[in-house]
C-alpha cells in the first residue's frame, strides 16, 4: 500500500550534516597508497609480480561476489574496495615465484574464511589477507619459503637464495642497508622496498586513515626489544635497525596491523595491541623456527582484539569525579 505524506520534509535524528568521508573513500585511499609497494614489486619482480597481483585480485573479488550472491546481499558491496585491498595485500605477502594455483587458493581462503564466514566487511576478527597467507604457509610450506631474487639483481646461485631475515637467521649473512631501503632484495612481493612503504604509510597517517598508535607502537617495541637483545649480545642478535627494515615488518605495521576492522577501537587497546605485535615479532624472529613472524604476530594479536576492546574502555569525561 502506498504511503501517504503530509509534507515533503525529511524527518530524521540529528545531526543533519555529515562530513565528506566514506568507507569506499578510505578504502580507495589505502589502495592508492598501496600502489607504491605494488609499483616497487612490479619493478623488481616484473611478470611474476603482475601475474600474482592479477590472480590474487581477481579471485578475491570473485570470491566476494560468490558469497554476496549466495547470501542474497547487495552485490554492489563488492565495489567498496575492501576485497580489492585484501587481494593486493595478499599478493604483496607472497613469494614472487609462487604457483598461480596457490595464489588463487590463497585469495579464496582469504575472502571466504577470513571475511565472509563472519558476515563480511566489518565483522571479521582476523585480517583476511593474513588468514589467506597463513593458510598457504601451512598448506605449502616449501613453496612459501622458496624465494626468487629480484630481476635487477645478479645472483649466482638462485636456488639457495634467501631473504634478508632468512639469510641472517640461518647463515648470518647481512643484506646491505641500501638494498633494504630501496628494495633490491629477496622476499615477498611487497616487503622489499622500505622507503616506499614508509612513504605510503606516512600518507595514510597524514590523512588519518590509519591509527598512528599502531605503527608507532609496533616499530618502537620491535626496536626496543631487539635493541635490548642487541646490547646484550651484538654478535648473536641482529641490529634492531636491520630488523625494522628487513622482512615484512613495515608492510605489516603500516598496512596489515592497521586494518581498521581487526584492530582495537580504543586508544589504550591499540597500544597494547601494537606492543604485543612488536614483542611477538621479536620472539618469533629470534627464537622461533621461522625467520619471519610478522604475519603470525598480527594474527595472534587480532584474536586478542575483542578482549582488548572490552577491557580498555577509555575514561569518560568526568568519570571518577565526585558529585
Amino acid at each position: 500500500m502506498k504511503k501517504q505524506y503530509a509534507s515533503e520534509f525529511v524527518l530524521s535524528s540529528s545531526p543533519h550534516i555529515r562530513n565528506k568521508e566514506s568507507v569506499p573513500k578510505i578504502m580507495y585511499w589505502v589502495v592508492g597508497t598501496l600502489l607504491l609497494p605494488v609499483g616497487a614489486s612490479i619493478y623488481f619482480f616484473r611478470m611474476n609480480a603482475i601475474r600474482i597481483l592479477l590472480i590474487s585480485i581477481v579471485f578475491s573479488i570473485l570470491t566476494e561476489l560468490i558469497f554476496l550472491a549466495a547470501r542474497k546481499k547487495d552485490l554492489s558491496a563488492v565495489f567498496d574496495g575492501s576485497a580489492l585491498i585484501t587481494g593486493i595485500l595478499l599478493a604483496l605477502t607472497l613469494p614472487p615465484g609462487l604457483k598461480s594455483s596457490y595464489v588463487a587458493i590463497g585469495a579464496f581462503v582469504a575472502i571466504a574464511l577470513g571475511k565472509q564466514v563472519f558476515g563480511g566487511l566489518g565483522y571479521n576478527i582476523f585480517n583476511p589477507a593474513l588468514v589467506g597467507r597463513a593458510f598457504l604457509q601451512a598448506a605449502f610450506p616449501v613453496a612459501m619459503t622458496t624465494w626468487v631474487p629480484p630481476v635487477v639483481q645478479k645472483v649466482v646461485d638462485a636456488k639457495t637464495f634467501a631473504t634478508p631475515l632468512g639469510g641472517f637467521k640461518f647463515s648470518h649473512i647481512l643484506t646491505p642497508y641500501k638494498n633494504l631501503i630501496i628494495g633490491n632484495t629477496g622476499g615477498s612481493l611487497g616487503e622489499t622496498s622500505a622507503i616506499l612503504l614508509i612513504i605510503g604509510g606516512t600518507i595514510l597517517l597524514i590523512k588519518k586513515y590509519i591509527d598512528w598508535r599502531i605503527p608507532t607502537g609496533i616499530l618502537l617495541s620491535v626496536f626496543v626489544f631487539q635493541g635490548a637483545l642487541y646490547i646484550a649480545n651484538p654478535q648473536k642478535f641482529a641490529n634492531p635497525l636491520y630488523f625494522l627494515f628487513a622482512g615484512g615488518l613495515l608492510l605489516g605495521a603500516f598496512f596489515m596491523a592497521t586494518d581498521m576492522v581487526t584492530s582495537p577501537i580504543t586508544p589504550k587497546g591499540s597500544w597494547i595491541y601494537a606492543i604485543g605485535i612488536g614483542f611477538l615479532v621479536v620472539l618469533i624472529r629470534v627464537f622461533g623456527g621461522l625467520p619471519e613472524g610478522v604475519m603470525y604476530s598480527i594474527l595472534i594479536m587480532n584474536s586478542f582484539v575483542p578482549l582488548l576492546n572490552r577491557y580498555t574502555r577509555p575514561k569518560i569525561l568526568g568519570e571518577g569525579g565526585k558529585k
Partner: protein
Amino acid sequence: MSTLLISIITLGVLALLFAVILAAADAKLRVEVDPKIEEIDTILPQANCGACGYPGCKNYATAIVEKGEEINKCSVGGQPVTDLIAKIMGVESAATTKVVARVHCRGTEEAAKRKGYYEGIETCRAAALVSSGDKLCDWGCLGYGDCERSCPFDAITMMPDGLPFIDEEKCTGCGICVEECPKDILELHPIDENVMIFCRSQDPPKQSRAVCKNACIACNICVRKCPTGALTMENNLVYVVAPEKFTEECYGGIDKCPTGAINFVHPEKVVRTDKQENDKA
C-alpha cells in the same frame, strides 16, 4: 592370581577412599533444593518470556514453590501446564483464560498519513524518537514492526497495509509485544471478547478526523445505541468497559459507526438472532 588380587585391592581401596571423601563433602557442602522446583521448571514451556511476571521460567517455578505464587500465571503453557503444576503442588487447578494481544489501531497507510519522509533506524521505538513518530496521528501505529520482531512465538506479521496482524492461534498472551510497542497500541484481551475499539486517539474530533480516516471521532453514536452500559466515552474516545454487557441491543452502534473505529474482532462469529430489530436500528 596375585595380580588379580592386587588389582582388586588397589581399586577397592581407591574407591573406598574417594567414596569416604565424597560422602564427607556431601554432608558438609550439600545445597538443599526443593525437587519440586526442578519438576515444575521442566513442565514450564521454557519460553522465558516473562509473561508470568518473573524473569524466567525457573524463577516462576521457584516462586510457586517457595513463595506460594499462584499457579495459573503461565499464559504460554495455558491450561495444560496449570493442571500439571497443580498436580505437582497437590492443589486444585485454577482456571486460566486465554488472553491474546490485539491492535488498537486501524490507521493503515491509506487511512492515516505520515508526517514526512522519515530517514533513520527502521524500528518503531527509534522512529518514535524523531518528531515523536512519523505518523500524523500521535496515537497511531508506526508500522515498523517492533511487535513482529519481539514476538517469541511468530504470532505477529506486518501486513502490506502497514499494520500488524496477530494470529490468535499462535498468540500466547505473553504480553511482550504490548510492552514493546512505543505507542501502546497493543493490549491483552480475553480471546472470547469480540467487540473492540480500533483506535487510541484522544485527540479532539476535528483533529482525529483530519489525520486518520478510521479514527474514533467521539460522535457518541455507539454509546447512545448501547443502553446496557457496555461503552463509555471519555477523553474523546470510546471504551468498552463491560464487554460482557455488549449484547445484541448494542450491535446497532457498530453498524452505524461512521469510521469503523468500533467493530467486532471476528464479525463472522457474531450471531444475530433478531435481524429485524437490527435493520430497524
